[in-house]
Structures are given as C-alpha cells and as structure tokens.
C-alpha cells in the first residue's frame, strides 16, 4: 500500500531541501525578531513621545495587515520604490518585521510590569536611563516575556509556510511542487504536517530549556 520509492526518492529529498530553507528563515527571523521586539518594545515603553507614536503606528500596521499581504508588498511593491529582494530575502525581511511587531507587544507589557522602585533605585545609584533599561529592566522583562515570546516563535514556525507565496522554495513550496506533480496531496501534506509538528516540538523543548536556564528563585511569582 505504501509506496516507499515515492517517499524515499521523491518526497523526502524535496521536503528535506525545503526544511533547510525553512530553518534558514525561521532561525534568523526568530533571533533577530526577538532582539528587534525588545528594542521596539523599549522604544514604545520608554522612548520620547514621537518615538512611541512611531513604534505604536508600526506595530498597529504590521499586526493589522495579513502577513500574506505584507509578503506581497515586500516582494512586488517595494521594487517599485527601488528596493529589490530575492524571494528568500523578501520572506526573511517580512518575517522579521512582522514577528518583531508581535514580540514588542509582549516585551512592552513585561517592561511596564517591572516595579518603578527598582528603576528609582538604579537611578539613585547613578545609572543613566539607558543603563537602567539595559541592565535592570530588560533582563527582568525578557525573562517575564519569554513564555509569550516562545509562543510567538511557535507561530512563526507555522507562518513561515507562507514564504512559498513569494516563490521562496521552503518546506511548503517544495511540497506543493511534489503534490501537483504527483497528485498525492494526502501523503505529501500529511508528511509536511509531521515536519512542522517536529519543528514545533523541538522549538518548544529548546524554549523550555531556556526558561529553565534563566529561571531565578522566586522571580515572576509576584
């Protein structure tokens, strides 16, 4: 019943090729997106009012427009402004911009939850505002935001499958090609589903380990 030749010769090599592209999208997008989310969250929580407004507008725009539309804009509309991207570059750029907007929302909430007293204590010791944010507020906020940010990374893994829309041949793109060549939609997308499930499982494990690693006695219990 199971056509092992189809799996081993056609499907799996294609999916493995796609997997590498997917990972090349997801890993940098989640790392840079988390960093960008912290920077954007700080700007929105502590920046001067013009920067806050700018950050809020950016977040509202990127959270309000479907990612598929953003991908299309990056790939098809930006060249009209003289900004050209390869398919991979367009997908990665869109993912970073989008995920950092979401991450900033989680980070901003965590930043604002840090007790004012600690900020006053740092300033009383002679910390500048920037040093206070860098050494006192962000390390605590990042810990507090880590579970939500991990959730966003799990979403990112799955919405990375939209990259095929701009002809970036990641997991989903490769799968579509195999499926339309062979008409074996069930097997192909069942296998793709398992690939994504495996990626999410590994990511969740890594995120749990990170949370464990950065855990501090009694922190976040109040």
């Amino acid at each position, binding site marked *: 019943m199971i056509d092992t030749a189809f799996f081993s010769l056609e499907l799996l090599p294609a999916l493995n090729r796609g997997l590498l592209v997917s990972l090349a999208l997801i890993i940098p997008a989640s790392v840079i997106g988390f960093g960008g989310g912290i920077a954007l969250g700080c700007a929105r929580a502590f920046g001067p009012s013009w920067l806050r407004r700018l950050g809020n507008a950016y977040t509202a725009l990127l959270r309000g427009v479907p990612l598929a539309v953003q991908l299309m804009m990056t790939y098809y509309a930006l060249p009209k402004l003289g900004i050209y991207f390869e398919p991979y570059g367009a997908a990665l750029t869109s993912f970073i911009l989008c995920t950092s907007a979401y991450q900033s929302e989680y980070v901003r909430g965590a930043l604002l939850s840090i007790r004012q007293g600690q900020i006053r204590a740092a300033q009383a010791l002679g910390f500048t505002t920037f040093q206070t944010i860098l*050494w006192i507020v962000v390390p605590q906020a990042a810990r507090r935001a880590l579970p939500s940010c991990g959730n966003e990374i799990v979403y990112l893994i799955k919405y990375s499958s939209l990259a095929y829309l701009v002809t970036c041949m990641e997991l989903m793109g490769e799968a579509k090609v195999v499926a339309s060549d062979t008409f074996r939609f069930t097997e192909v997308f069942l296998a793709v589903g398992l690939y994504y499930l495996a990626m999410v499982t590994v990511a969740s494990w890594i995120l749990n380990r990170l949370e464990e690693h950065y855990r501090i006695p*009694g922190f976040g219990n109040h």
Partner: protein
Amino acid sequence: MTSGIEIVLSVRNICKSFGAKRILTDCSMDVKRGEMKVLIGPSGAGKSTFLHSINCLVPPDSGDILLEGRPLDRSNKKALCAFRMQVGMIFQDFNLFDHLSARENVAIALRKVRGMGRDAAAHRADEELARVGLARQAALYPAQLSGGQKQRVAIARALAMDPKVILLDEPTSALDPELVGEVLSVIRDLAADGMTMIMATHQMDFARALASEILFMEKGRIIERGTPEALLADGSGTRTRDFCTRLLDMGAQAGHD
C-alpha cells in the same frame, strides 16, 4: 553658611508642587560630615518627598543643592549621575534588583557605573555584605531573603559606592517588628563609623539616641529643628515632643507604621 569642607551637603529652599498641591515649601538644611539628621513628622508631611528631591528622584521645582560646596546643575544629566553616585539612598521598600543575587545587587553599580572589573566588584560586594552581616547570604536572591536581610543588602549596595552622605527613607517601616532591630543596629554601626546620614523615621528612641539634629516636618515645611535633648525635653512644649508623646500613646503600634 560657610562653604567649607565641613559641610558635606547643603540643601537650600527646596520647593515642590504636584499640580496645584504644594508638597514642599522652603526646606533647607546643612549637613556636616559625620552628622545624622533625623526627619520626623506625621505621614504626608513631605519627609519622603524631601529626601527624594535631594537626589532629584523627585526633581524640585526650585532651590539649590550643594555637595561639598559645589552646586548641582540638575539639567546636566552627567552631573546628576555623578552626584547620585556620591549620595546613597535607602528606600522604605528596599527596591533590590529582583533578578540579581545579593552579591550582584551590590556589584552591578560598581561595574556599570564605576567601571570596576567583575572580580574586583564581586570582591568589594562580599566585603560590604560582610559588613552588614550577610557574608553567607551573598549567593541568595531577593525572594530568598527576609525583609531585614533585604534592607541590609540595600545598605551594602549603597555603601559600596563610597557615598559622601546616605539618605534613608523610613528604612524600617516596611519591616516586621522583630526584624527592625537588625537594620537599626547596622545603621547604628554606620553612625559610629562617622557616616553622614539623613534619615526619615518613626523610631523615636533611635532618633533620640543618635540624631545630631531632629527636624520636624509638617505640611511640607520644617517647622522645628534642634538637638533631641532640646526638642524632646520634658516641658519643652514643642510640636516635636507633642508628636512623640502621641506616637508613644499608640502603644504597641508606636514607632512602627
């Protein structure tokens, strides 16, 4: 009114309003080296705001602040940070950094503000923790410490910066009664070592024993000042004495709010 080296900190005519509400009116004091000034007065008198305005955590609307005769330019952020480095502050609710161990709480300002190396800062932190009797708690996090221990870490953190003066904002008010003693004894040791301090407190016995001068505040003004002997003497008829008598009348709650 000399600007000699003898006067460490001089605060002149501090005024502060929040909106239309006047919080501080013309508060002034000169603190000599090794002195302990004690601020007392009812809740809401402005003691805490006055202390916070001295290092501009609450920026005063007007008035001058001079450290060792040099006026502080409050609009200059660099000068303000340099000033705050030299003026320690102890808060009612400790305000330890929750994500750092006791040792790191003390060491972080040494490293980031004073630019000390990691090892030197850790070594200095251990010394200061030993000075407040917490050598064995250096690796514990704030959530693992009692209130009294947290406040002693906060004192070690301030001491490590070698401050010229320390401001203490009701350092024992948030503590359970049985923990007050350990913090007061650390402050007593500091006074004996000649540390210059300004302290807001309701601990009248402590103030009477250690204060060089008591300043009594009410409605944002310093309305009486003098040595404990002068202000608290029987029959002196001062507001300070009246206030202290009422504190004692509250029985078990006296000295702890």
